[in-house]
């Protein structure tokens, strides 16, 4: 069912100006990511420069939403973003909690989160303990999410939390839904402790997310999995009126795929607020975790604007 419904989003005809706007929107929702063992601070700085100006020949394009790196790279990204001459809203996202496995003691995970926040991270991408989840110990998974969330809300600057479910290891779509509901509820429980602070964070554009994957496990993000998670977000909004963001990550490589996802967001969450707008079609509530996707979007934008097919060699890797 989910697979069939998800496949139906891929046959919308989006052309010319609508396509260009779609690509620009997708670009503005990117979490430009490098999560490799060979990452260096220069790679991180280079990625930050790319985030500020994705295509130097076309400065009118939007910046990406965030740069997503390991905790050790956060300070390098922060320094580079601070050098920018123009004002920008690019956030720094850091994976933490023993990414990607999450198989570390809780105090180590919390120290990982604290370090990343102190170095300047605006967003923490945590991993759930899939081992505990699959063995039925949902309570301890929720406890960990609450503990991480408490570190985030106690920080001196606003910090958003993204919970990575690693859906490629959860075996079934039912599990994806259970993990989504559990994560959303755990984060909300901590938010409930201080409504004023939560409102301030939301007003500043810091919303919590659920995220599909680390990018280290195959399959990573797929459309059926993302659809199930979007439905969890929809049902939570209908029950409580609260917004939770969505971040599919890994496996989205082509600009065309990114449009399929935007169609899915619009057709799953687009009609909820009643005013015709879809709050989820903004970088505050929807992100793509990707690295190769960026250059394909830039390539397709340049094709639309010049009428000439582009070479991948023309765009920098980072």
């Amino acid at each position, binding site marked *: 069912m989910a697979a069939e419904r998800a496949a139906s989003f891929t046959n919308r005809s989006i052309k010319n100006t609508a396509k260009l706007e779609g690509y620009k929107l997708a670009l503005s929702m990117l979490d430009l990511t490098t999560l490799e063992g060979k990452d260096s601070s220069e790679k991180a700085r280079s990625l930050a420069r790319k985030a500020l100006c994705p295509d130097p020949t076309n400065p009118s394009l939007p910046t990406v939403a965030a740069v997503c790196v390991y905790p050790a790279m956060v300070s390098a990204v922060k320094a580079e973003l601070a050098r920018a001459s123009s004002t920008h809203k690019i956030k720094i996202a850091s994976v933490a909690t023993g990414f990607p496995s999450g198989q570390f003691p809780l105090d180590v995970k919390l120290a990982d989160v604290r370090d990343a926040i102190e170095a300047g991270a605006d967003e923490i991408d945590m991993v759930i303990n899939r081992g505990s989840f699959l063995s039925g110990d949902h309570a301890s998974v929720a406890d960990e999410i609450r503990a991480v969330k408490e570190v985030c809300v106690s920080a001196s600057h606003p910090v958003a939390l993204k919970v990575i479910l690693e859906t490629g290891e959860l075996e079934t779509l039912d599990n994806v839904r259970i993990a989504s509901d559990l994560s959303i509820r755990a984060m909300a429980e901590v938010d409930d402790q201080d409504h004023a602070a939560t409102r301030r964070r939301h007003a500043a554009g810091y919303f919590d997310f659920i995220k599909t994957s680390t990018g280290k496990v195959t399959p990573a993000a797929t459309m059926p999995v993302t659809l199930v998670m979007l439905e969890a977000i929809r049902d939570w909004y209908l029950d409580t009126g609260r917004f939770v963001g969505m971040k599919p990550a890994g496996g989205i490589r082509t600009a065309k795929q990114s449009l399929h996802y935007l169609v899915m967001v619009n057709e799953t969450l687009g009609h909820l607020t009643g005013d015709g707008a879809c709050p989820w079609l903004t970088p505050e509530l929807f992100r793509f975790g990707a690295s190769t996707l960026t250059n394909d979007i830039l390539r397709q934008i340049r094709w639309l604007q010049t009428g*000439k*097919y582009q*070479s991948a060699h023309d765009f920098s890797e980072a």
Partner: protein
Amino acid sequence: MPTNTTTDRLDILKTYKLFIDGKFPRSESGRTTTILNSKGQPLAYTSRASRKDLREAVESARRAQATWASSTAYLRAQIIYRIAEMLEGRRAELIESIHSVAAPIAKSAKKSKSSGKSLTPAAEVAFSIDRLVHYAGWADKFSQVLGCNNPVAGPHYNFTVPEPTGVVAVIAPDQPPLLGLVSLLAPVICSGNATVLISSQTNPLPAVLLGEILATSDVPAGVVNILTGDHAELIPFIAGHRDIDAVHGAASGDSATTLRAGSAENIKRVVIRDSIEYTSSECESAWWIEPFVEMKTIWHPASA
């Protein structure tokens, strides 16, 4: 081609498809062209490639190119020789494909003026096979001829070696449909380039047969991609495409101008063959390989 001897049965005409990434897809546009025999009757249908088919073909060539370039020169020679062998085995079919489609009057009249003699289909196939064998031989020899040792003042060896340019678009002349195509293709692939090949517009049948032959002659998928269709429609997109590194094409007039103007912007190398006598040994030379390689010069320290 089978002729209809009874009145109660219609011949089933074959719809030939494109050859992209080792597969035979229809054009994404769904369009076909009816190919007429010399009596003006429908003989077959070919796919009419769109710019999106061109885009897919270039992506496929780009993916295949590095592996083809890194295969040994000896292996590339063997594979090109293998194509010649496979052509030899399907001579009759190729001759029929050239013979059964009449060359347009105006073009053939112009051609016979420039060539001064007519080329029979059988001779065209024979020339094509020999040309492939010729360039199979060049695959492991051109770098010795085009490369060199350079005298330098200092304790260094200095030498220059040719490397393939990358993805090359080959635009076949309308006539001769097989020999023209093979003559432009062979020097490009023997050095390790991958290609997108646009067939003769007036008779694409030999090109689609070549696609079927390539699929079974050890040529890695994507090294040669074959599109059939309208040259005037595809040429502007070839000229502007930034991921095509060079063009080896038969073109004249507006098409040649479009190719040259487009390449001025993205600096692709354009080699246009106009008024070529394809049966001539002029087409068999390392200088036909040279435009589609890049010269790399290396300084290597030498002990004094």
